[in-house]
């Protein structure tokens, strides 16, 4: 993480939108701790290392909720452009990095995202794991939406394999173009055998890695409305319960209820 740029960008946007007057940012492994006039908050993004932070409110960093393509998918569902979701397909196969360090991170990411998009909560899950490298899951929500998830890690430097497709009674919404398999980018630079792509989608946070940009926007949203923290903590307890159910199904190989 480019800590210097991260902090300066966070402070700049915080001032621009009058979120907090001053903030002190420190980085700990898997978390960003922020002290400001509204309190002290530990934004945790490594869910495999989610112990408490002394004198700080625990806030799960559900940063994907601020990813533009997901907020647009959600708006398609919220506006009932497509209605009555029945199924959802998720692929998330990426190289490990600090935001995707373990399968627990991926399961929490994708479970929360599916719930965020559909407005329903996962009640049952079946998962089969290959160590901490890969898992296939089928989950079922409170409204009987079935979700298939292919989650895992590819070698360092690999292109990400990502798909989020909602299949509804009246239509389909997806973050991948029809007749393509891989994530597309706004910019490709072609130099002989080498192709470099750029993914500039946030002008206010120009040049920053997109996940870090999402984290900044997520932090600002939470600080703007610190009353949301209790709800986020409850959601994190639920996501941990989904993960625990997935772990149980690994041993028992049965459709596990999330309790």
């Amino acid at each position, binding site marked *: 993480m480019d800590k210097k740029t991260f902090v300066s960008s966070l402070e700049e946007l915080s001032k621009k939108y009058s979120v907090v007057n001053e903030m002190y940012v420190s980085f700990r492994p898997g978390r960003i701790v922020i002290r400001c006039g509204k309190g002290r908050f530990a934004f945790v993004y490594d869910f495999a290392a989610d112990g408490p932070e002394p004198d700080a409110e625990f806030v799960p960093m559900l940063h994907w909720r601020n990813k533009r393509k997901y907020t647009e998918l959600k708006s398609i569902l919220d506006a009932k452009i497509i209605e009555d979701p029945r199924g959802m397909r998720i692929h998330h196969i990426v190289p490990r990095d600090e935001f995707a360090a373990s399968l627990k991170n991926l399961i929490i990411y994708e479970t929360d995202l599916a719930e965020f998009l559909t407005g329903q909560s996962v009640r049952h899950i079946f998962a089969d794991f290959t160590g901490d490298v890969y898992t*296939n899951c*089928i989950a079922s929500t409170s409204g*009987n939406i079935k979700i*298939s998830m292919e989650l*895992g890690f590819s070698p360092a430097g690999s292109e990400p394999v990502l798909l989020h497709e909602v299949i509804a009674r*009246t239509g389909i919404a997806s973050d991948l173009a029809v*007749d393509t*398999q*891989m994530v597309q980018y706004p910019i490709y630079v072609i130099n002989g055998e080498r192709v470099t792509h750029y993914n500039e989608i946030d002008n206010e946070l120009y040049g920053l890695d997109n996940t870090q940009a999402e984290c900044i926007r997520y932090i600002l949203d939470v600080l703007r409305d610190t009353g949301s923290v209790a709800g986020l903590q409850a959601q994190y307890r639920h996501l941990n319960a989904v993960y625990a159910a997935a772990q149980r199904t690994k041993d028992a*190989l049965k459709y596990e209820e999330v309790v």
Partner: protein
Amino acid sequence: MRKINVAISSLTHAHVRKYYQTLHDNAKLSWVAVSCEDEDIASHFKTLGFDVPVYASTEQMLTEHPEIEGVVVASENNRHLQDMELCCQYKKNMLSMKIPSFDLEEYDRMIRMVKDADVICQVELEMHYNPAARRVMDLVREGAVGDVISFNATNITLSPVWAFPWQGKPEVSYGKKVPLREGDPRFRGGALSDHPHIFDMLRWITGSDFDYVFADVADNLRDIPEEDILYVTGRMKNGCKFLLDPSWSRHEEHLTRPGVGWEVFPKRMEVNYSIVGTEGVIQADCFGPNVYFNGGPNNRYTVQYTYFDEWIGMMDEFYDCIVEHKQPKINLEWHRKTIEAMVRCYDSIASGQPVWIK
């Protein structure tokens, strides 16, 4: 070059139209007759310009054309046994549709009949003749991604039930009416019954057989009496995991005859693989990329497929097997384990738990 005489019995299967051009074009085949009980379908066939006589029954066709050597058995699923019995009785080699039968006892009878009659029976699993699928198989065998951890595949399409109504009738598609699960008004025979290919490919790519399957079915997109959205996961006996999507998850216009404007979603059919190995990932689209248009009756943006050559290679193999009198790669006995795994997926849906396969 020796030519063989072939015929099609029944014109009701969704794939039958794929054979028309192939049988017409292949210089090694002489297309001598078709049989069709349905007058409407027979009338339509006569408008297509193929100079082939149409008979009202398969038996009549076989009686009038003793020169027939191979028959494409293109009937509805619940008719396959009866058609195969006839072909065996008349000692005709057969190309079976992709689901010979879901009744495993009936399936075993088919195997015995074919053996006793000493005829060839090839099963139509055309993905084996798809060039992208073939390349993927080569890549996996060459170790392009190391050891395979998981084979994931889609075989998702629109629902054919409006164009091929028998696929919407559980007793015809599955062979009998079996409820999906207790309290569910739907029956077996929908999307899963239409999509054996990825179950078969999984066996070829992993070189292993099914250890267990777990399947769950969503609420339907359509008002039909069978499942249309489901997901299947499980493990092969060599430890390889899999996740399969054999759904009818692409929306369609309710056309009674496939044609331009069928699609609501731009791509009506996909077979995609995602193969995760210890050293990398293969992403493959067996039917893409393509060309695109907007137009047609609804002026929708639509994928126009650019290669659909599977039936050419399949009919070449059928020809070779007849000439050399050898059983094909995809024969009834091989295919039984694929069919059994699909039946066990239905059992898993019924029980809500994984089903282990001996």
